[in-house]
């Protein structure tokens, strides 16, 4: 009895199978949408009579879907650039600084990640009406940029923390101008952090729905908003097609990062706190 083997402990095995079950639970709804996306009916169902790629085509041919795709890109790109500009400025400025003030500012910069989406929704619903940017691209881009800001700050400051503190001085002592020092020594060292921040900010905007619902009406219909609207009409299989494409893209990205030595490590997701 006491000679039980030290490795194969029963509770551990139970935990392992439970853990696997949890992972299956996590993946299950994602996998389930794949067959739904090939449904040959207009309403949500598993394929009955045959498979059809109808809904994939609708995604790119129906004006509502196509336009919302374009709009989402049109909002997410400038929003990510803006987030990068603000976040990078802050990180470069705050680099190597100590003290409570900087710490407080850092937490403030993470605010848009922490504060519940509904509060942003209420705040921007009001603020954008006030300055006349309700239901405008500029307003949406601004709000999405603010929501993406924490991810830029997180990933850029993470990569800055591993840069040698004397990098710029060193470059200067070797004859580089300040601009050269920045371009040739500092920025190349944090380029993965910058890229990751940009990607996360982009995806944040791409995925944003709660605040968008409150600050837009007719002019701005991003992809998530289009999904939201279509979900009320019927469980449109286009959403399943869209989800399947997103799944495919994510899988490819995961594969690519794990093959490329995972330089762009997965930070916590940029999903909105829904």
């Amino acid at each position: 009895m006491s000679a039980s083997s030290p490795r194969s402990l029963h509770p551990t095995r139970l935990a392992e199978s439970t853990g696997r079950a949890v992972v299956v639970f996590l993946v299950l709804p994602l996998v389930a949408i794949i067959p739904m996306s090939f449904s040959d009916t207009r309403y949500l169902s598993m394929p009955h009579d045959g498979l059809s790629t109808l809904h994939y085509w609708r995604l790119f041919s129906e004006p509502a879907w196509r336009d919302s795709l374009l709009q989402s890109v049109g909002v997410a790109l400038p929003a990510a650039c803006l987030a990068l500009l603000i976040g990078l400025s802050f990180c470069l400025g705050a680099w190597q600084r100590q003290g409570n003030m900087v710490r407080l500012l850092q937490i403030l910069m993470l605010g848009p990640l922490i504060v519940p989406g509904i509060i942003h929704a209420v705040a921007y619903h009001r603020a954008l009406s006030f300055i006349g940017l309700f239901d405008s691209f500029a307003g949406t881009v601004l709000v999405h940029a603010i929501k993406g800001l924490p991810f830029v700050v997180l990933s850029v400051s993470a990569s800055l923390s591993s840069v040698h503190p004397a990098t710029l001085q060193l470059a200067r002592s070797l004859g580089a101008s300040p601009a050269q020092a920045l371009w040739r020594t500092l920025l190349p060292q944090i380029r993965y952090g910058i890229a990751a921040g940009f990607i996360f900010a982009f995806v944040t905007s791409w995925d944003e729905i709660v605040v968008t619902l409150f600050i837009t009406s007719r002019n701005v219909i991003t992809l998530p908003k289009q999904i939201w609207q279509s979900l009320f009409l019927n469980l449109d299989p286009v959403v399943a097609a869209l989800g399947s494409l997103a799944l495919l893209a994510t899988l490819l990205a995961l594969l690519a990062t794990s093959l490329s030595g995972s330089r762009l490590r997965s930070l916590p997701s940029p999903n909105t706190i829904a």
Partner: protein
Amino acid sequence: MSDFTYDTGYMQHLEQSVRRETQGKTVHRRRFLQVLSALGVSIGSLSFLPSARAQQSELVVANWGGDALPAQRDILAAEFVKRYPQIHVAFDTTGPTPGKIKALVESDNVSWDVADRNLLSALELGRQGLLEKVDESIVDINAVPSQFRTEWGVGSYFFSFVITYDAVRFGSTPPRTWKDFWDLQTFKGKRALRNNVEGVLESALLADGVAPDKLYPLNVNRGLDKVRQIKAETIFYSNTSEAQQLLRSGEVSIGSLWSTRAQGVKEDTKGRIDYHFNEGILLIAAWNVLKGAKNVKDAWRWVALSQDPYLQVALLKKLGWGPINPAANKLVPAELQAQNPGSPENIARQIVVDAEWYARNYFEVQNRYLDVLAA
């Protein structure tokens, strides 16, 4: 116990303070915009609005999407463009909720002109200064009976909450009354009610045995108690399309739906889902024109157009909108009378909602309704 008291003093106070606040803010906003323009920034340049959309000659109609879009486009918009060729009609199907209307009116960017809402909302929002007053030079207010119009809106069609059910499931003994609707023993399956209190209290009180002519003022406590009875077996939907889908998929066996949408599911399912007007809760739809809309004049033209008896009949055919213009009643073909919420015999079977009561009590009652749902 019996009455939910009207606190008119509070309402007036609320109105005033809202008005004070909105006006005050307008001043602030104007100053803010002045500062911006002094800095050489124009709001127009910030909004990147596609210029075609911002043109004056566009009329933007906000509706609830779904079946309403093609019908309004093919009947009303087509006719409108015929009469006013220089004007382009655009639709926004995101749903004209009071919050969006308020946000738009308060911003300088009122991108909707006219919204598909109802007479209750015309009173509520109108009193808050969010709507334009009816332009009687364009709209003939006498086209509808006086009880179907207010200062801020004219009734445009009848629709009602009707008992909509799975006809295959219930066969020859479908639910006839709200009593049946509440009877979970005899009529198995889930129910669907709107998560907005309008119409729900009336259904509940009728189910509880209140006589139709004794409904108003509504006994809110009694009605909410009745809702509690079936809460566990009820799905509270926020969007009528959702309710259609619940019935279509069989998730729900009986629902209280807008008659216009009930007709839609009936056609969709080739009669598997059916409805009737018995004890329907009749509401009066009304176009609301947003305060400061870019195109107020055309908005009232749109309203006037929708009073056209021929178009009203066409909309009845297509959407089940009950003609509110008495002149249209004579034009309704006999076979359409059955699905006309405004036909004399259907009106007789239904209860007309008291818009004034809701305009005074809506805030309070809606929150108490949510309270019941959330508890």
